[in-house]
């Protein structure tokens, strides 16, 4: 290994962090254009960090296991929502409601995670697209359950939750009783800023969990599988089982993440809330500089801040720039999809190049 010069090091740093750097530059242009006050932006970012970080963190473990971005995390989100619906029917409020919702949702998330893991084991090498379609498929089953079974098979007593026809859950559920139950469990105010300490503590605990988990035997096994499935299998690691465990952990965490997300927002859109959870979480993670094969905890937080900064300022910036807020709206949609497309493409390209290089090195001198 030859030592790198400073210039090379800087070059490497710039290239490997190209995505976050571009986003920092874009925010630097868009923030003054939008005309939002710094206090407002800081408050927004504090809230959004609390709201979204957990969901994004749930993506890390499957990446560790080499399964790419777990688009199947929406399964967990749906499980969380089922828990929340039941809890709001039973009118359990506050932090107790959230805990109960998590308790109900956990077995569902474990079951769904197991199914997802088993399906992905049958689709090695195209986990991402498969988990993505699986998300849609389970969304269908979720709608089937929530639209037809709830109120018929599963009794729902609170008439405010049920559609006027007598069964099926309404489009929007007010979670007023649970709103900010975790966020402001420990109240803290700095100046005019509300700090959701409770959620931060949870997220902090979870980060510690990830750091610890990576060092355990299971975490090391996952990393080995992520490096090379065949070698790991030959070394006696139960590849399929470990992959299933990785997905189960991710699904359960996404389920808690969605509960945290919704207690912060305060309303549950029964049929849409989970839809975008996956997409936004993945976009945020990629914007934070993660790739399909490598994601760290700093990536998560940087990504959430940058992505949501874009999210907050772009409609206003679009309005100032083009005279239409709608342009900014579409722009942020474009950015979220475009960034996923580019990151995936760059990663696949790099992998292909690596493969070619490996093949060439076997060929010897021509």
């Amino acid at each position, binding site marked *: 290994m030859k030592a790198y010069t400073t210039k090379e090091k800087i070059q490497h740093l710039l290239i490997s962090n190209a995505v976050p750097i571009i986003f920092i530059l874009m925010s630097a242009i868009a923030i003054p254009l939008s005309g939002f006050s710094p206090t407002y932006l800081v408050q927004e970012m504090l809230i959004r960090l609390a709201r979204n970080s957990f969901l994004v963190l749930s993506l890390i473990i499957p990446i560790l296991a080499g399964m790419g971005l777990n688009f199947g995390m929406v399964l967990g989100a749906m499980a969380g929502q089922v828990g929340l619906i039941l809890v709001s029917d039973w009118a359990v409020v506050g932090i107790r409601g959230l805990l109960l919702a998590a308790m109900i949702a956990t077995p569902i998330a474990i079951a769904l995670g197991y199914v997802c893991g088993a399906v992905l084991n049958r689709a090695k090498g195209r986990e991402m697209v498969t988990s993505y379609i699986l998300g849609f498929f389970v969304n269908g089953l979720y709608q*089937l359950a929530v639209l037809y079974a709830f109120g018929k098979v599963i009794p729902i007593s609170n008439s405010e939750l049920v559609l006027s026809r007598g069964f099926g859950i309404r489009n929007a559920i007010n979670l007023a009783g649970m709103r900010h139950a975790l966020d402001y469990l420990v109240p803290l105010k700095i100046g005019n800023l509300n700090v959701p300490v409770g959620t931060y503590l949870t997220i902090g605990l979870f980060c510690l969990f990830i750091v610890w988990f990576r060092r355990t035997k299971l975490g090391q096994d996952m990393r080995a599988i992520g490096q090379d499935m065949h070698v790991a299998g030959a070394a006696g690691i139960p590849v399929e089982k470990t992959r299933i465990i990785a997905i189960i952990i991710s699904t359960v965490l996404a389920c808690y993440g969605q509960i945290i997300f919704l207690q912060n927002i305060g309303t549950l859109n029964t049929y849409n809330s989970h839809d975008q959870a996956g997409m936004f979480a993945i976009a945020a993670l990629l914007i934070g500089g993660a790739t399909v094969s490598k994601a760290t905890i700093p990536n998560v937080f940087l990504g959430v801040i940058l992505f949501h900064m874009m999210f907050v300022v772009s409609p206003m910036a679009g309005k100032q720039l083009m005279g239409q807020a709608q342009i900014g709206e579409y722009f942020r949609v474009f950015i979220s999809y475009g960034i996923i497309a580019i990151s995936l493409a760059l990663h696949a390209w790099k992998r292909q190049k690596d493969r070619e290089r490996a093949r060439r090195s076997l060929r010897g001198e021509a």
Partner: protein
Amino acid sequence: MNEKLKGFIEEAGWPRVIIGLFLLSLFVAAPFVQVRVDASISDTLVRFGMNGILVLAMVPMIQSGCGLNFGLPLGIIAGLLGAVTSIQLAFTGMLGFLTALAIAIPLAALFGTAYGLLLNRVKGDEMMIATYVGFSSVAFMCMMWLLLPYTSPTMIWGYGGSGLRTTISVEGYWLHILSDFLSVQVGEYFYIPTGMFIFFGFMCFLMWAFLHTKTGTAMTAVGSNPEFARASGIDVNRMRVVSVVLSTVLASIGIIVYQQSFGFVQLYMGPFYMAFPAVAAILLGGASVHKASMVNVVIGTFLFQGILTMTPSVINSLLQTDMSEVIRIVVSNGMILYALTRKVQVKR
């Protein structure tokens, strides 16, 4: 007999048999719940014609080993650009339809080339990237629809004076221009859009003929075994680009045919999820991720559109609730999932 049945089920695959039987039972049940069978069949036929070419667009990329073209919206966008430009030029009738095609096809070829070059760099991950290429191009065009300088009063927002509407009627331009060509109307409810079928059949024939030319055979070879194809002197990357261009061009033609029958041009988020029904249909027809034929296209489109037409009416009258949307989601995504998780069979 039993052996034969077993063989057939093995050949067709369980999901296809189940869905076929489901559709059959819907048709059988229809008269008992006061749903007109002739109207249903007619609806199915119309939708079959509308969607056929979009499903056909899947074939080239599957054959060349690029997988399922989730990036279909890219071609659809080229078609949309052709359609709105033709309306802008105020061409009506067959001339308008042909103008739309004439504008859409070169655009689609252009988009397809760029898209193909991208997919060549990401071999093995085509499907996921295709999905997001489709999504981001739709989102990008959402901005463009607002900004492009179209002025025809039938297309732009009434109040702002700029920006295209979300749905634009093609009535007065080229509504049903293909469908009504030689069309057959029996009684009040039964209608066969002959012209659309002829056009679809013609496209299928062209595709079939192309796959039997030298280039077409080379393309199939690339899909079956790229290493072998390369060893026999085929330019693998070029063949893949050709297949992607073909797929994109077919998508652009397909959406214009769809619009002339449907009656509206749907902009903005309209094309967003259009790839999924097309993918589901061809898989339902018996295609795998690696192999597809014209028969798969025809059977798949018919089965899939049949279910889409029949479930709302029949299930609605049967259960007094509308479950069609949920059934559609479960069937189409279940089908894609089945195809993706099927163990790849290697024939030796």
